């Protein structure tokens, strides 16, 4: 268990290091960062001073070391546009993003797992087909198209729900549905497949033969075993879907979260904010993945003891 934890942590650190390096290389590849900081009309002498100030006259290797040192010292720089520390700007966006993410994940789990079980148990009847068709639609509809439809119907035609910001609980409804839709489709598919694998197992027949009621058989013997597979998917798929989805959803609904910040920074070419924001989200996703990996090992007794190769 401990060696697995260490290995996961090491892999996470390595991946993060690679990402930081890629970010550095990308920004330097695109030309001198000075061209973004200062506009035109700068004299040659001033330019030389600025170049020395930002230490751009040094070799790339030294610049890279300086970049890493500043990063690990917690000096993440100022926003080009707002002239505030980027760490502050990202920090104040964390909580709204987290709120939206929690509500979307909660809705996803509440809807997707029961529907996935129904789709597996009733796979031969029209109920199962209908559920799967619904999942398919959730996969095929881009979330910004879904958002546009929802806004047209519920905000503009019916005038029931607010669209902009995160002021009241009612503001949560449309962004949550939009963000959850793709996650529901993914989790539902995997729940169904995991349940289908489990339903054919011998222990299920044994449980039925003991005379247990069907509900107990499916929920206790079936779902518990399928749950391990579902958990791993919820982690990997959902973390990625949520990160990409948040960018779009927050931008559409003017939700004051990190996704909205990132899109605006990208459009206005506010590199320090973009850099730090992307690294923060990447780190968050890595952490979630590592936590899921760990939970996966903890739930599955086969992995708990032998260091974790059995499940691979």
């Amino acid at each position, binding site marked *: 268990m401990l060696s697995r934890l260490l290995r996961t942590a090491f892999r996470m650190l390595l991946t993060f290091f690679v990402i930081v390096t890629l970010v550095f290389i990308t920004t330097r590849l695109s030309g001198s960062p000075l061209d973004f900081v200062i506009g035109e009309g700068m004299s040659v002498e001033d330019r030389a001073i600025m170049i020395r100030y930002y230490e751009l006259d040094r070799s790339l290797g030294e610049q890279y070391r300086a970049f890493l040192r500043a990063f690990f010292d917690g000096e993440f720089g100022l926003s080009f546009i707002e002239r505030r520390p980027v760490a502050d700007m990202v920090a104040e966006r964390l909580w709204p993003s987290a709120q939206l993410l929690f509500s979307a994940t909660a809705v996803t789990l509440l809807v997707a797992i029961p529907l996935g079980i129904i789709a597996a148990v009733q796979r031969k009847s029209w109920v199962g087909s209908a559920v799967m068709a619904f999942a398919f639609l959730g996969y*095929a509809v881009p979330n*910004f198209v879904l958002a546009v439809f929802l806004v047209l119907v519920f905000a503009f035609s019916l005038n029931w729900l607010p669209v902009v910001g995160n002021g009241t609980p009612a503001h949560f409804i449309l962004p949550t549905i939009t963000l959850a839709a793709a996650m529901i489709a993914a989790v539902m598919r995997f729940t169904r497949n995991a349940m289908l694998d489990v339903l054919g197992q011998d222990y299920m027949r044994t449980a039925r033969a003991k005379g247990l009621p069907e509900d107990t058989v499916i929920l206790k013997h079936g779902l518990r075993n399928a749950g391990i597979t579902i958990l791993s998917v919820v982690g990997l798929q959902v973390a990625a879907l949520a990160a990409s989805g948040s960018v779009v959803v927050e931008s559409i609904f003017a939700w004051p979260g990190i996704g909205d910040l990132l899109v605006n920074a990208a459009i206005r070419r506010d590199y320090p904010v973009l850099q730090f924001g992307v690294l923060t989200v990447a780190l968050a996703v890595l952490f979630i993945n590592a936590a899921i990996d760990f939970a996966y090992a903890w739930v599955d007794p086969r992995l708990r003891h032998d260091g974790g190769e059995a499940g691979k």
Partner: protein
Amino acid sequence: MTTVTGTGKYLGVRGLWSEADLIRRVALVLSVSLVLAAIFAPILAGYEPNAQSLISRLRPPLGFEGARPGYYLGTDELGRDLLSRCLYGLSLTLMLAALGATLGLVIGGTLGVLAGVAGGRIDAVIMAAVDTQIAVPFTLVALFMLSVFGSSMPIIVVVLGVAGWEQYARILRGEGMRLMQLPFIEAARAAGASPQRIALVHVLPNVVSPVVVQFTLSLSNIILLESTLSFLGLGVQPPTATLGAMVGVGRDYMPTAPWIVLAPALLILAVTFSVQILGDWLRDRADVRLRGR
């Protein structure tokens, strides 16, 4: 339409049609007509996609009050014909997606076969890159790259190509490793074939079917990514029409002129829906385990 099955058996269009259920037939007809519409966009469109006409701004589609004859789907905020823009947008979206998916196939395919055939340290490095790519949500990478390098067409194609390479790399590595165990490869090696020859002549022809399936699946992901980026204003820059950008710009006019958003949004839906169904279909055919489930 290429019709490759898991066993390498080729079926005619008629054979495909007769085994398809209703949804798959709809998807097939829909995707063929969408591709035709995209190819013949210059002929079908009645107007230049960027020609403005300020007298006829924000006109609704034909059949609604205030519509102008000749503008079947109405006009947008600058008086441009919506149908023409949709057609041109569709063709650009499909072209970008096809280019991106092909680029991803070339990058990922090469690295995947290399990893599978060469093994050892090369394999470890390539798979570490794959793991890193999987760990980071690609929308973020795309945002970053487009913002740093600008949203020119070549950059967009590169971003879309990088989006899916790791899937090809994984699939082809697995297939490559599996094939390397088989006797006919060993025979080729014993006969003195070079690693390059083994990769090109013996491995590549045997991985066509999973690659076709993955190509279709990744096509729909790439279309989604492209329209999302355009929607956010980071894709192809105005006034050039892509479907995602039309939805993005039209957002501001939603309360008064919903058709500006609805027409391209429905078109995107039709594209992603039919491509996904086709991809799913091909995967079912290729995956023997799923037959009869």
